[in-house]
C-alpha cells in the first residue's frame, strides 16, 4: 500500500506580520490531503532550510509581502545547495513584481503565485510536480 504523502513547508520569512495568505494556503493544501508544516512568522532563511530538511518536504512555500524576497530567495536557494538539498522545490506567493518573475524562475524558484491565484491551481501544480 502506498502511504506516501506530499509534504509542504509553509514559511513566512521577513518582518511583515501578515500571515493570512500563508494560513489560507496551508488550509487549502491540508484539505487536498497534503501534510503542511507551518512554521510561523519571521523565519530566517537558515531556519526555513533547516526545517525543510528535517521535515523532509517536497516543497517550501514562501509567502513574502514586504519586498524582502530579493534578499530571501537567493539565500534560500543557496542554503539548499549548500546542504545538498536542491531536490526540495521552492514556490512563492505574496507581492512579487511581474517583471521580476522570469529572473527568479531562472535562479531556481519553481513557481510564483501572485495575488488572486486560485488555491486549486496551486494544489494542481504541486500534485503534477510531485508525480
Amino acid at each position, binding site marked *: *500500500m*502506498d*502511504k*506516501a*504523502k506530499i*509534504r509542504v513547508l509553509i514559511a513566512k520569512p521577513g518582518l511583515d506580520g501578515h500571515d493570512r495568505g500563508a494560513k489560507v494556503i*496551508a*488550509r487549502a*493544501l*491540508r*484539505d*487536498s*490531503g*497534503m*501534510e*503542511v*508544516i*507551518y*512554521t*510561523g512568522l519571521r523565519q530566517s532563511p537558515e*531556519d526555513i532550510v*533547516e*526545517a525543510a*530538511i*528535517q*521535515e*523532509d518536504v517536497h516543497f517550501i512555500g514562501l509567502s513574502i509581502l514586504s519586498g524582502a524576497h530579493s534578499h530571501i530567495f537567493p539565500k534560500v536557494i543557496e542554503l539548499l545547495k549548500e*546542504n*545538498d*538539498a536542491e531536490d526540495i522545490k521552492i514556490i512563492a506567493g505574496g507581492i512579487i513584481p511581474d517583471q521580476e518573475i522570469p529572473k527568479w524562475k531562472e535562479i531556481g524558484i519553481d513557481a510564483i503565485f501572485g495575488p488572486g491565484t486560485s488555491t486549486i491551481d496551486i494544489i494542481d501544480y504541486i500534485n503534477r510536480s510531485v508525480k
Partner: protein
Amino acid sequence: MKPKDLIRKLKQGDVRAVARLLTLIENEDKAVESILKNIWPLTGNSYIIGITGPPGAGKSTLVDLLAKTAIENNLKIGILAVDPTSPFSGGAVLGDRLRMNSAQKSGIFIRSVASRGHLGGLTATTRFMINGLEMLGNDITLVETVGAGQGDVEIVKVADTTIVVEVPGLGDEVQAQKAGILEIGDILLVNKGDRPGADRLAKELKMMLSLGEHKEWTPPIITTTATKELGIEELWNQINNHKKYLENKEIDEIRLSKIKYDLENQLSQYLFTRKMIQIGENEIQNMAEKIFNREIDPFTAIEEMIKQ
C-alpha cells in the same frame, strides 16, 4: 537515495539521511525493513520522554522549554511532535514547530508527524521513528502526542518517563477519578498555573493519587506556567528523579516488556495480513453469502477458513 547509500549516511549521523529514513518509516515503505535490520544494533540509546494531555494544554511550549533545559545541561535532544490527520481529507496542518522557537534556533532536530488515522495519541510507526532519530546520537528523545483524550494512553508503551499535562477549567474532581490518561503519568503537571483553578486542580490530582493503591513511585504533581517559564526547573528535576528511580528498578526489564509488547503487535499484524491474503477476498465473500442465507453459521465458517 539507494538503501545502501542511505545506511552509510545514517551511520555518519547525516541529518538528511535521518529525515529521509523517517519519511520511509512513516510511509511504511518496503525499503524500511532492510535498513532497520542493518542499523538495529545502533539504536535504543536515548532516554524517551513522552508528553501528553488535551489540545491546547501547552505541550509544545513545554517541549520547547525542556529542550532548552536539556541543552543547558549539555544533552543532545531529538523531538517527534505528533498532530492529527484530518479524517476527511487525509491531510494535516502540523503546527507544533510554531511553539518550539528556542529548539528551532538551537538546531535541534524536530520532526512533525501526522497521525495518519492512527488512534491512541501516536502513530503506527512512532516506535521505529524514535529508533531512526536515534541515529543522530541523541541522549533524549522527546515525544509529544496528539492532543489526547482520556483513552489515548499509547505513549506509556513507548516512553521511559510519561508526563501528563492538565490545565484548569476542564472539569470537576470526578474527571480526575476516571480511568485513562491520568493513570499513565509518571509525572502529573498542572500547566497554566497562573489561571484560576490551578491550585484546586493540583489538590484534586493529589486527592486522586491518595485514594488509589500506594505504588512504589508516587507521581509528583508539578505546577508550571510555561509561557512565563515557571516551574520548568522543578519539572526537569522530577524527570531526573524518575530516571534514577527507573535505573535502580531495572530499567532494562521495563524496556524489555515494552519491546515484547511491540513485537506481539507486529507479529499479530504480520500473521493477520498473511492469513487474510491466504484465505482471499473471494472466499470471505462466499462465506458471507452462505452466512446470509443461513447455510452456515459464522463460527463454523471461521473454523473452515482457518483450516485452509
